[in-house]
């Protein structure tokens, strides 16, 4: 059975290590915060200018001067620091953030990411996504393995404008986990009960299968 969206977030949380600085994108990635193991100390960055993002505020704590990159009201953790957009993206582009976890529209077999243009809708802009994928040490992408109409989202070539070319390190879909090395995808893990046959059938991208493939019967 495929992973649920919460299980995607839970699987992504396993990529986090003690002391990591992490940027979480809008959507499913924000749920990762619920699955960070208690014994691990992770600092969340928000690209509008802070390190040490805390949980949502209680209703009487809401502060208009304290929002995250998704423009939602947040709180600060005790170790928080604030800085300008220039300093924030110097940090991102300079490779100081350990992991960025992002959503995707399409992913290509060479690790290209397309997540800023939604077909048929007006282009609203890439925000900080291009900077994040170009700069962060490890880019983890979470997405449904297929679109609602069943069409593959992990494809040979993205036919949507790219956010970054060959930038993805790890792709976690509802059916499995792919690692990218030298812009070559390798299937390393299957969601419980998902067969190699099933994931192959539902994928357009070429990929190799790890000799250490993790496969759990449901």
């Amino acid at each position, binding site marked *: 059975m495929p992973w649920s969206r919460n299980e995607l977030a839970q699987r992504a949380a396993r990529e986090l290590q003690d002391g990591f600085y992490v940027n979480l994108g809008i959507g499913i990635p924000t749920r990762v915060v619920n699955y960070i193991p208690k014994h691990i100390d992770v600092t969340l960055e*928000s*690209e*509008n*200018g*802070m390190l040490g993002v805390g*949980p*949502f*505020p*209680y*209703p009487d*704590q*809401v*502060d*208009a*001067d*304290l*929002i*995250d*990159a*998704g*423009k*939602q*009201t*947040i709180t*600060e953790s005790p170790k928080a620091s*604030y*800085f*300008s*957009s*220039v300093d*924030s*993206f*110097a940090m*991102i*582009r300079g490779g100081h953030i350990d992991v960025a976890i992002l959503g995707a529209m399409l992913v290509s077999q060479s690790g*290209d990411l397309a997540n800023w243009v939604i077909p048929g809708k*007006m*282009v*609203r*802009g*890439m*925000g*900080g*996504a*291009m*900077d994040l994928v*170009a*700069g962060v040490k490890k880019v983890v992408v979470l997405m449904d393995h297929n679109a609602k109409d069943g069409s593959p989202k992990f494809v040979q070539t993205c036919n949507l*404008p*790219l*956010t*970054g*070319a*060959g930038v993805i390190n790890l792709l976690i879909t509802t059916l499995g986990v792919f690692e990218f090395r030298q812009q070559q995808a390798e299937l390393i893990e299957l969601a419980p009960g998902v067969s190699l046959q099933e994931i192959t059938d539902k994928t357009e991208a070429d990929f190799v299968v790890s000799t250490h493939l993790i496969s759990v019967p449901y």
Partner: protein
Amino acid sequence: MYKFRDDEHVALKDLLFDGMTIMAGGFGLCGIQENLINALFVSGVCDLTVIANNCGVDDVGLGILLRRRQIKKMICSYVGENKIFEQQYLNGELEIEFSPQGTLAERCRAGGAGIAAFYTKTGVGTVIADGKEHKVFDGETYILESALKADLSLVKAWKADLEGNLVYRKTARNFNPVMATAGNVTVAEVEEVVSIGELEPDGIHTPGIYIDRIIEGRSNHKPIEFITTRNFPDP
């Protein structure tokens, strides 16, 4: 004392001309110049090129300038949820130049810091790289991005002293400090003006050299785009 102005209209009056380029700090509706933007609206100045990360929403922030069709071109990273914007764009009345958020910030920094252009990895292999110079450093490909400057920069800070030294509050800092450096003239709107000597010299975010005029904002609504909260814990 000579930098302080009585209100937003007086502060901007002689600085505005049709066709000018204006930078405005802010991220979404956080750290925007409510009073100065209102003065822009009232002035009717038009054919503006506006450099800002976003363009407000329909009735708030830079969005209000769209009602009088004052903006000709936006240079931004994300448009936001803005129906009038979408309409004017689809009608071809409004031009947009998208710049990735970090590149946008860095281009403004370059403008203020005497850097003509810089090589960045951001956008390589995307439409953003089209037509730009590519160059390989240490085996990695970079693209050349150029500086941005403005005739006028509008910034919002928490406190200013009369010298123009500014302190921002939390994530309302965002693009404000960099845009303060890249305007030919920079006007700051603050919540409180304090005496010289009240701000800690080690804690000043924008030195007064960058600030030409200051107003104390008459209204500080500070609207919030998305209020997200958690429940109070059980007692």
